[in-house]
């Protein structure tokens, strides 16, 4: 993928996230993808036979599926020019002291150990293909909460993994889900037992370091009856002159009366293709909430989905997409009502500036027989200048009459009058624009835990610095 570098070094990104460590890894597969590579990955991981077969079948599916021609432009991705597996360390550490110095320094710089001490119940840190650090609070472990890397999860809980893996998102779902299923590595495995409330968030942090790298983490979360968990993921990468690929699969099962909130603050560098499949199934009276913040990447295609399987299930997607120069955020949501009396809310806020393109692509589907469903979709777009673009593609497939569906969409431009008003009070233009943008996304940001709300606003400021005028 060493095409020419059309990268906008977002002001401040280079310094704060865009640095990279000297490559040091214990294993790096050759470039390219074929059966040998898949077999090699599986062997190195010491996986059971069924997983190898699963991977190989997925590889066939990947090869047989055409590239998507909708959404963003993925034609430039050269699948043979990617490193599919880069193993950074020989094993996962349970203490930051045991993480190699370079990597530890990276995560220190990103503030992960500090956040862990202050307000998290558990942390996983993935560096290239593998999780290098993983830890959960003892008190949760004692209650039976499992929070492991996906690889460790497969080793320690093979039956549980086998029962759910690939059931929410089959490999055949789409080309990139098939790709992930073939070469997945890392990600999180979470199980929250019946009735257990994990009241502080678990966090995973994903870092790509190696050039021309593909990161394919795989996450599976099972929230048992009446249990609750909030999982947060953050991601950054160095600025390289060629492109990287991040293609994750996230599967979530929320059982009767359970609740899961999944928060993403995606801040990839502008050379990362971010093509992710995220889907949850929610059973009776269960609640699934996706809070999805997309600030970075070259192209993001991501539509977190909720399938409401039984009566009383509720789904919510709060999505923010921010596209700057050279960026395309094709973000959105899917709410599928498979049972009566289920409800969903989708709120999308997209911002585009400096020629960036941000949009909402969403589907609300009500199956035959799913009466008394309610769904509300709100998409607001803010366009910061005339070079930028916003798209809204709200799809509705309603097969039942007795339902309540609402949809509202607005597009606004950042007002000269708003800027003038703030500047007339002495506030510099950049800061004024950032304040307007922060105000625009406030309805979503206020849903975030305080630490992440602060981080979100800081990232917005960073995006806005030196950008107006």
């Amino acid at each position: 993928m060493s095409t020419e570098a059309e990268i906008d070094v977002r002001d401040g990104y280079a310094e704060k996230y865009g640095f990279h460590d000297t490559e040091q890894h214990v294993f790096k597969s050759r470039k390219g993808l074929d059966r040998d590579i898949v077999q090699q990955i599986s062997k190195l991981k010491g996986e059971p036979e069924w997983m190898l077969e699963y991977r190989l079948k997925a590889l066939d599916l990947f090869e047989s599926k055409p590239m998507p021609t909708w959404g963003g432009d993925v034609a430039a991705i050269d699948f043979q020019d990617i490193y599919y597996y880069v193993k950074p360390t020989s094993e996962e550490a349970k203490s930051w002291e045991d993480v190699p110095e370079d990597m530890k320094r990276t995560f220190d710089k990103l503030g992960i150990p500090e956040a862990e001490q202050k307000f998290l119940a558990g942390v996983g840190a993935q560096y290239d293909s593998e999780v290098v650090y993983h830890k959960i609070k003892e008190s949760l472990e004692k209650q039976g909460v499992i929070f492991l890397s996906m690889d460790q999860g497969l080793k320690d809980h093979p039956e549980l993994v086998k029962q759910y893996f690939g059931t929410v998102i089959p490999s055949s779902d789409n080309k990139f889900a098939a790709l992930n299923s073939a070469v997945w590595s890392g990600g999180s495995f979470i199980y929250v037992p019946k009735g257990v409330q994990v009241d502080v968030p678990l966090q995973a942090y994903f870092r790509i370091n190696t050039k021309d790298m593909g990161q394919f983490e795989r996450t599976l979360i099972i929230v048992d009856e009446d249990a609750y968990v909030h999982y947060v993921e953050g991601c950054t990468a160095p600025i390289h002159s060629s492109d990287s690929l991040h293609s994750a699969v996230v599967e979530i099962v929320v059982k009767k009366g359970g609740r899961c909130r999944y928060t993403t603050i995606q801040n990839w560098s502008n050379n990362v293709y971010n093509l992710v499949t995220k889907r949850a199934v929610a059973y009776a009276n269960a609640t699934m909430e996706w809070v999805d913040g997309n600030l970075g990447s070259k192209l993001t295609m991501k539509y977190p989905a909720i399938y409401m399987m039984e009566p009383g299930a509720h789904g919510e997607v709060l999505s923010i997409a921010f596209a700057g120069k050279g960026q395309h955020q094709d973000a959105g949501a899917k709410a599928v009502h498979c049972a009566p009396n289920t409800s969903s809310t989708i709120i999308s806020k997209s911002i585009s500036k400096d020629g960036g393109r941000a949009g909402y692509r969403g589907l609300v589907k009500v199956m035959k027989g799913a009466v008394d469903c309610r769904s509300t979709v709100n998409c607001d777009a803010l366009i910061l200048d005339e070079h930028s673009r916003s798209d809204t593609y709200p799809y509705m497939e309603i097969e039942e009459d007795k339902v309540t569906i609402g949809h509202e969409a607005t597009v606004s431009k950042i007002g000269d009058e708003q800027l003038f008003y703030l500047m007339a009070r002495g506030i510099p233009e950049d800061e004024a624009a950032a304040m307007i943008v922060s105000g625009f996304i406030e309805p979503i940001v206020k849903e975030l835990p305080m630490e992440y709300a602060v981080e979100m606003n800081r990232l917005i400021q960073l995006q806005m610095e030196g950008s107006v005028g």
Partner: protein
Amino acid sequence: MNGDLVVKDLHVSVEGKEILKGLSLTVNKGEVHAIMGPNGSGKSTFANTLMGHPKYEVTSGEILFKGESILEMETDERARAGLFMAFQYPVAIPGLTFGSFLRAALNARLAPTAGEDGKMPTKKGIPPKEFRDLMRKHMTELRMDEKFATRYLNDGFSGGEKKRAEILQMAMLKPEIAIMDETDSGLDIDALKIVSEGVNTLAGPNLGVIVITHYNRILNYIKPHRIHVMKDGRIQATGGPELALELEQRGYDWVREEVAAR
């Protein structure tokens, strides 16, 4: 020419159309001036030009503030230098609370390097508690509910609330010259009184005020030292408080005739 604010033969165009055609005016701290005139005479154009709205193009003339030309200064720099405009139509910014907006405005002023190189101010600014106390004090004076601080800026504010919010900003930002663009429009008598009281309280040796108005009812509450009559982009007549009465009785048309006859 001496004066805290000196406007000399100012010509201003909007989208190629000349609106101000040689406006001259001098305002000092400690003075209250009123500019009166019919709709379309250029009053709001003058206020916006003073504040540096990008839509208004100064084609000739000069504006000196404290002896220095401000024509090359950005709006935010002018504000930090001590100019203030109370808006006729304050702009709503959903999601931005009035309190955090006001604090940012105050901090921008406290950190003089802010914005000079396109960067955000690095100084911490006014401590939160000190800010809250100061805001509360001013809010009480203007009979504003404290909850106001948590509402989104001008979003869903009533006409009276908007104007009071403007006065509150003026009180806290302590400008040296304030221009009030038809602050009296859309106010009921009670709100008008409160706003006028606010202006009267703030007026003093450290503040010069220019009140722009279409009606003269605000002049029942604010007593300007000088009254200027504006028409066709120029100040056509200047006088003491008695001029307001004359306008009341005779309307605006006589001004031009009289000027022409001179």
